């Protein structure tokens, strides 16, 4: 025993990054626990997805049924409830995503099992499974131990680890859906794509991105001038879009866009991990923030601890001068 059951996540026919990222964590835990990794793919018409997951050299269990054409938390909970009884894994792992958060806590309550949300790492030491969490605006880590249980439930933070490369081929085993009929009380209606604005920030070469530190929209002209000087597009953190300073389609982060520009200037962005997950693939990151403890500095290449309003106008002037 000691198997790790990883629930892969996919949407609109595509596996999401978190599914691969969990392949960096699950094998080491399985090894320590003396079990193996099994990947569960639930959906409809998922042969390709199952095969792709099997390329991590793991056994894939595919539950392929029309009932799972679209994600539905209630159906997932029912299916997993039955599968846990059946497979008895030591750990059930999935992503702390809009999908994972929508059913894992309910499943934990239903099955009366220990649950840790949003681990950034998991380890098995001296017979105890322990998760590391990152709390209080990313400034504190917490070690949380699972008490002994049939199955420990855990979700993994998106972007906490890098996805490994696929290693070897594995098998795909099809399993009948434990769920036999549709449920009437929760219906999937539709997906609504985010409105597309005039700029697609995922394609931008240079991004000037602002956060809560902008304070108010009257401060935008300074930012616009900097952006103009270096031919950058303007983006923002969730705080900046929630406040209405920046259009929603220019939000960088897990609930917005993942961007990979050549240069990312983070101004007054503290760097909540949801934001970091969306921009840490940028080639060069510059961060300006007055809080020296701001997590954004952990991913920055160049850092300035100061008031952005003192630095930005001067930076714009100098850049204009240097670029002639």
């Amino acid at each position, binding site marked *: 025993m000691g198997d790790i059951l990883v629930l892969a996540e996919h949407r609109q026919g595509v596996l999401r990054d978190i599914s691969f990222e969990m392949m960096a964590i699950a094998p080491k835990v399985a090894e320590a626990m003396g079990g193996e990794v099994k990947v569960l793919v639930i959906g409809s018409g998922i042969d390709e997805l199952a095969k792709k997951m099997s390329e991590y050299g793991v056994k894939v269990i595919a539950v392929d049924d029309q009932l799972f054409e679209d994600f539905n*938390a*209630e159906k997932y909970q029912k299916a997993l409830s039955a599968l846990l009884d059946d497979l008895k894994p030591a750990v059930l792992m999935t992503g702390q995503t*809009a*999908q994972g*958060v*929508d*059913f*894992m*806590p*309910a499943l*934990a*309550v239903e099955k*009366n*099992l*220990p*649950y840790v*949300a*949003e681990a950034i790492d998991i380890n098995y030491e001296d017979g105890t499974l*322990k998760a590391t969490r990152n*709390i*209080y*605006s990313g400034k*504190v*880590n*917490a*070690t*949380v131990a699972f*008490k002994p249980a049939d199955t420990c439930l855990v979700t993994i933070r*998106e972007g906490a680890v890098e996805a490994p490369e696929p290693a070897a081929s594995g098998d795909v085993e099809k399993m009948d859906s434990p769920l036999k009929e549709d449920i*009437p009380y929760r219906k*999937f209606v539709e*997906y609504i794509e985010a409105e597309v604005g005039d700029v697609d920030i995922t394609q931008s070469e240079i991004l000037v991105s602002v956060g*809560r530190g902008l304070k108010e929209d009257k401060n935008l002209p300074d930012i616009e001038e900097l952006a103009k000087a270096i*031919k950058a597009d303007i983006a923002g953190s*969730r705080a900046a879009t*929630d406040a*209405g300073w920046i259009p*929603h389609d220019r*939000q960088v982060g897990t*609930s*917005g*866009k993942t961007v990979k520009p*050549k*240069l990312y200037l983070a101004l007054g962005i*503290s760097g909540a991990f949801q934001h970091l997950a969306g921009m840490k693939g940028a080639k*060069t990151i510059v961060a300006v923030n*007055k809080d020296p*403890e701001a997590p954004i500095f952990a991913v*920055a*290449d*160049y850092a*300035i601890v100061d008031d952005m309003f*003192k630095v930005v106008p*001067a*930076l714009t002037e*100098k*850049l204009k*001068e*240097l*670029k002639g």
Partner: protein
Amino acid sequence: MKTVVCIKYVPDTSEAEVKVNPDGKTVDDSRFSFDINDADNYAVEESVLIKEDKGGEVDVLSIGPKQSEVMIRMAMAKGCDRATRVEDDRIAEHDPLLVAKVLAGALKEKEFDLVFTGCWGDDFNHMSTGVALAEYLGVNHASMVKKVEVLDGKVRAHRELEGGLMEVVELELPAVLTIQTGINEPRYAPIRGIRQAQKKELNVVSLDDLGVDPAEVSVDASQVVLENLYIPEVESAAEFIEGEPEEKAEKLASILTKGGLV
């Protein structure tokens, strides 16, 4: 519509220095400012907007200390009708499933159509309480909701997925929705409103009052153990640019141009 909105009083650590206490399990909160959890603030506004649109009542439910009453009075000043504050130091605060169990205990005798919570807590970011609460209550739920449409006997919730995609789901009422920030623009609670809200009913209750067995929601009852807290080492490879603001700007401008980055 009868709505219950669950809110939490949390420290603002976004710009504060955070220190772990010698017990290794708590942080020194003596220098923090506290306020309603950000997402919960949007949940309050959404509940009041629905009341203004559809009529009905809004109850506030919170677990927290006496000091948190200012937050509760503010919610009442905005339009919530009455409140229950659970104060009991036997609750395992680190475990969102047990927190949800307490909330469920407080709601078991109550009639409601909707229960709102914030979709995540600024302190521990579990994103678990609301969904666990729905399970305890045996009602439908949807998490990370950024638009709510109340229909006849149903609610249509727009869930915000990664990448800005919205997943629209329809739930039969009653239901628990966990509310995402940005769903609305929370209003200001004027002091006169807060003073008038002093007249509204605010019940302070313990686990015993709720009929919740403390042994079932205590630290011992939790299936997870908070072993320790620590400040992570920041592995920053960043080059910190020093000097007066203008010097910093000049150095950075030079790095960016010389490096061919702009």
